[in-house]
């Protein structure tokens, strides 16, 4: 009779556990790529778009990589634990897809120097932390063009979350484009101090409509405002992905985020050894910012004008922030023929003429 000691069991277990590792090492081990999401993959918005990008990555690079994701990770201390786990699990590359992961990403990256980190929408970088973002304001210019054509009252309502540069440049790009069509166009901004509060967003849309706006744009995440417009028989733009399922008549188009292209390029660089930290801000030219199909409510003239803006931005011949630009206090901000640099955009804290905030 053999006595099986606990120590033998442990040793045996360890040996067994290491077997799959040996097996993997024998082939060229696939690069583990981890994704950290702030919301559920089914949010039909921000996180959903990132997960589509992850699937594109898998389709493009096949068995050279192995992806995994963790969803609903709260920004802050909890994310640090998740990041550390992903790094320990052997991932060679980790994408952290929300602004609030910035400090945890930098911190964990210091401890795992061999892991390459990519942080979306942040501004802190290090040797193994790169940052990336998309020029969503380009899509706002397309929406603004459509709004300029379609609004009868000449007043758009804009449901905005917080006055950070990202949101401010969207409001400005939207208004500048709309005023190219209708010089008297006004954008009435309603700050709701939240990214997500469906009931409040719906009430905000109603308030804007009652005060004369007949088209709604939003920089908050729920489709509630679209539903409010659907009930009132008015139109609105979706946020972050096609939201037409929620409001088939009201939804005109939405700005969609096509992260896949960036993910394929960066992971490819990691595989061939050419990856380096840096900051990437891609837009329509790189096909990372896309417009979802226009609904049939968009008239032919607006459709053509919107396509012209989109194609112009893609070709680099149409700049949403082309001078001259005057702010809403009457001060000249940019001379004729000049363009705003990325640095100016990143710290934008003023509104163009026509914005009522």
């Amino acid at each position: 009779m053999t006595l099986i000691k606990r120590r033998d069991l442990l040793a045996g277990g360890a040996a067994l556990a290491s077997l799959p590792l040996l097996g993997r090492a024998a082939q060229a081990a696939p690069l583990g790529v981890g994704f950290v999401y702030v919301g559920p993959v089914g949010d039909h918005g921000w996180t959903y778009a990132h997960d589509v990008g992850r699937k594109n990555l898998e389709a493009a690079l096949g068995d050279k990589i192995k992806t995994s994701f963790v969803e609903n990770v709260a920004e802050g201390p909890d994310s640090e634990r998740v990041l550390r786990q992903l790094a320990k699990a052997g991932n060679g590359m980790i994408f952290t897809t929300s602004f609030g992961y910035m400090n945890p990403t930098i911190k964990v990256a210091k401890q795992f120097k061999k892991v390459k980190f990519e942080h979306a929408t942040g501004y802190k970088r290090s040797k193994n932390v790169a940052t990336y973002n998309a020029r969503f304001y380009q899509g706002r210019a397309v929406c603004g063009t459509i709004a300029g054509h379609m609004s009868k009252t000449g007043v758009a309502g804009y449901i905005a979350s917080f006055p950070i540069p990202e949101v401010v440049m969207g409001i400005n790009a939207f208004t500048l484009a709309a005023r190219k069509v209708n010089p008297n166009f006004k954008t009435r901004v309603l700050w709701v101090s939240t990214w997500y509060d469906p009931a409040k967003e719906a009430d905000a849309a109603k308030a804007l409509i009652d005060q004369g706006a007949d088209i709604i744009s939003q920089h908050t995440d729920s489709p509630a405002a679209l539903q409010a417009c659907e009930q009132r028989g008015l139109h609105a733009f979706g946020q972050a992905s096609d939201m037409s399922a929620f409001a088939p008549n009201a939804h005109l188009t939405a700005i969609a985020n096509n992260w896949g292209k960036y993910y394929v390029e960066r992971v490819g660089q990691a595989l061939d050894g050419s990856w380096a930290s840096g900051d990437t801000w891609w837009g329509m030219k790189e096909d990372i910012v896309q417009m979802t199909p226009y609904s049939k409510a968009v008239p032919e003239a607006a459709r053509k004008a919107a396509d012209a803006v989109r194609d112009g931005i893609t070709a680099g011949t149409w700049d949403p922030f082309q001078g001259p630009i005057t702010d809403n206090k009457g001060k000249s901000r940019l001379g004729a023929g000049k363009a705003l640099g990325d640095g100016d955009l990143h710290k934008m804290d003023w509104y163009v003429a026509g914005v009522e905030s």
Partner: protein
Amino acid sequence: MTPEITIAILMTVVGASTPILLAALGELVVEKSGVLNLGLEGMMLIGAVAAFAVAATTGSAWLGALVAMLAGAAAALIFGVLTLTLTANQVATGLALTIFGVGVSSLVGAPFVGMTVEGLGTLFPESLADDAWGRILFGHNPLAYVSLLAVVLVVWFLNRSRAGLILRAVGESDEAAHSIGYSVIGVRYLAVLFGGAMAGLAGSCYSLVLTPLWADQLTAGRGWIALALVVFASWRPWRLFLGAYLFGGVMTLELHAKAAGLSLLEPEFLAMLPYLATIAVLTIISLRRSGARAGAPACLAKPFRASA
């Protein structure tokens, strides 16, 4: 301000106030029986997701509202077993119920993200809500009328009915009520179940009326406003009714003032106003010497163990 806008604002105020009123009314009865259930937000979310799931699967919004009440009551039952039978700490259990509600509603709701349902619609035929007065009287969502009826019924129940008297006795002096033969735990169970059902119905108001869609944390913290409202109203149903419309009015007028280009106060300040008002009322209550006891039930949040 044109009459059109005034009516539109009024309609929005009623919409925003109704779920707060429903949830707070349930909590008021719970607290009158001497139990503090801080799980309102969780029970509202469970009600909201249950209503949406049922309405999306069966196509009947009314059935959804009914199931929301049952689901809210079921969540309250968990709270009841823990705090009443097992005498666990009510504050901790209530907070846990909220966190549980957030998680379970997200889990149940996951397959329903991105769907829409036909909401509850209106109670009266549209021809009645044709002109201005018609809209004000008949144009609201069905739950708004339910909430008004509920206020009247709760006032009658607490002040005029024998059962209401027993409930208040249990909340004011559990030992005395027990010694003359009333089942303290039994009464409290019924109150907690009622509170859960009302919170569930309040939750369904979001997923079936205000924003007929499902998304995580749909109620976005309204349960906490309802909790504050009970204190704000110093446990009186009529004051609760006024308070609900005051809170709903402030939330709506804030948006309208901003949309009209008036910025009276910072939005962040307005967001904290309901809680600030509650603190102010609490301060006033405790400053009034005679009124110090007038508000809160004496046995609030005190666990009861039957002696012999």
